[in-house]
C-alpha cells in the first residue's frame, strides 16, 4: 500500500501533527497497512531562510511517500509536491500522528486541489 508522510513534532506515532508543512520538525513515514513507520528529520528545511517548503517537498519525495498529511501547505511547496505526484491532505491539526493516520484510513479526508496557506 501507498506510504504516507505525516508532518510531525517528533519521531513517534504519539507525537502531535506539526501543522506547518515547510517548517515541520519532521515526517513520520507510515505504511498504513502494517503501521510500520520511520522518521525523516526536516531540520534541513527549518534552517533555511527561503525555500523551506520546496526543501520539505523534496524530503517527502525522497522518502518514497505518495501522500502527505499536514496542516498548512504554501503555494510553492504545493507546486513541488504536485510536480512529483505526491497527494496532499491538509487542515489536519491538534491530533497525534496515529490519529491522523486513522483518519486517513477511515476515508474521512479530502485530497487538496490547491494550497491553503
Amino acid at each position: 500500500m501507498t506510504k504516507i508522510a505525516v508532518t510531525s513534532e517528533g519521531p513517534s506515532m504519539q507525537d502531535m501533527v506539526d501543522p506547518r508543512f515547510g517548517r515541520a520538525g519532521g515526517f513520520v513515514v507510515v505504511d498504513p497497512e502494517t503501521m510500520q513507520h520511520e522518521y525523516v528529520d526536516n531540520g534541513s528545511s527549518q534552517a533555511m531562510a527561503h525555500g523551506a517548503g520546496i526543501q520539505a517537498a523534496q524530503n517527502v519525495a525522497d522518502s518514497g511517500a505518495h501522500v502527505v498529511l499536514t496542516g498548512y501547505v504554501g503555494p510553492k511547496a504545493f507546486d513541488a509536491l504536485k510536480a512529483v505526484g505526491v497527494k496532499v491532505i491538509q487542515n489536519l491539526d491538534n491530533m497525534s500522528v496515529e490519529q491522523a493516520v486513522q483518519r486517513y484510513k477511515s476515508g474521512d479526508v479530502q485530497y487538496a486541489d490547491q494550497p491553503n496557506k
Partner: protein
Amino acid sequence: MLISIASGKGGTGKTTVSASLAAIWDGPVTAVDLDVEEPNLHLFLNPQVESEEKVYLSVPEVDESKCNLCRECSNLCQFKAINVMGSTILTFPEMCHGCGGCMAICPENAISWGRRELGTLSRGKTGPNNFLMGSLRVGEAMSPPLMRAVKERLAMDLTERPGDAIIDAPPGVSCPAVCAVMDTDFILLVTEPTPFGFHDFKLAVEAFAPFKKPMAAVINRSGLGDNSVEAFCRENNIPVLVHIPFDKDIAGAYSRGRVIADLNPGLKSLFVQLAESIKEMGAGGRDA
C-alpha cells in the same frame, strides 16, 4: 564622489534632502533614485525622461533531455530555485538570485539562461544634471539585482561624463539599504529627533559603520522630540551637519512636490552649507 542619502527609519526626509542637494549642487551631478521599490525623487526633480529600458535577471532553464538527475545544482542552490524531485527537475524562477552557480556546476551543461524581468531603468535630465531611476516590477520580491543594474549604469555614465552622484537610498537597514550605501564614498543619514527616529538611526549606524565610509547626520524636523540623537552622535563622533527645522511651510512645499531649497534663501544656504560640509568630509576621507 558618490553620496548616499540613507536613514534607517522611513519618512525622515531622504528624498527631501536628496532633491535639495541635487538642486543646489555646484558642479555636474547625477541624481539617482535607488529606492526602487517606491521611487519618488522624480516627483520633486521633474526630470525629462530620455530613455527607459527593462532590466532582467538571468535564471536557469533546464534541458531535461541532458539532465542526469545528479542533484549538484539542487544541492548548491541556497534558495531552492532549482530542484531535482524524484525524476523531475523543478525550477522556481522567482526564488532565483541569479548567482549562476547551477550553470557553472552542471556536469552535463544542461542549464542555460532564461530571464526574469526585474523592473525598469529610466534615464533623463533634470535641468543640467543627469537623472537615473530604477522602478521595481510589481510582484518582484528582490530589489538588489535591479539596484545593481542602476549602479552599473551610473558608473558607465560617470566614466563618460565625470561628476558627483547623489543617491536616494531605500529606508531600513536590510539588503536593499546596504546595497545602496555599500560602495558610495559618503553616507549621509537623515533622521528626526523622535524615539522612532533615534531607534532606527542607531540601527543604521550599526549596519553601515562596518563599511568605514565617512558618515554624517542631518537632523530633520529639528525642534521636535529630544536631544537623544545629538547626544548619540557626539558620543560616536558622527558630525551633525545641519538641522532642518520642523516647519509648516516646509511640509506644505513638500506636499506640493517642491524642492525645499528653493523655498527661501535661508533654506538654500542651509543646503549649500550641507553640500560644502559633505565635500570637505569626503575629501578628508579620501586623504585618510
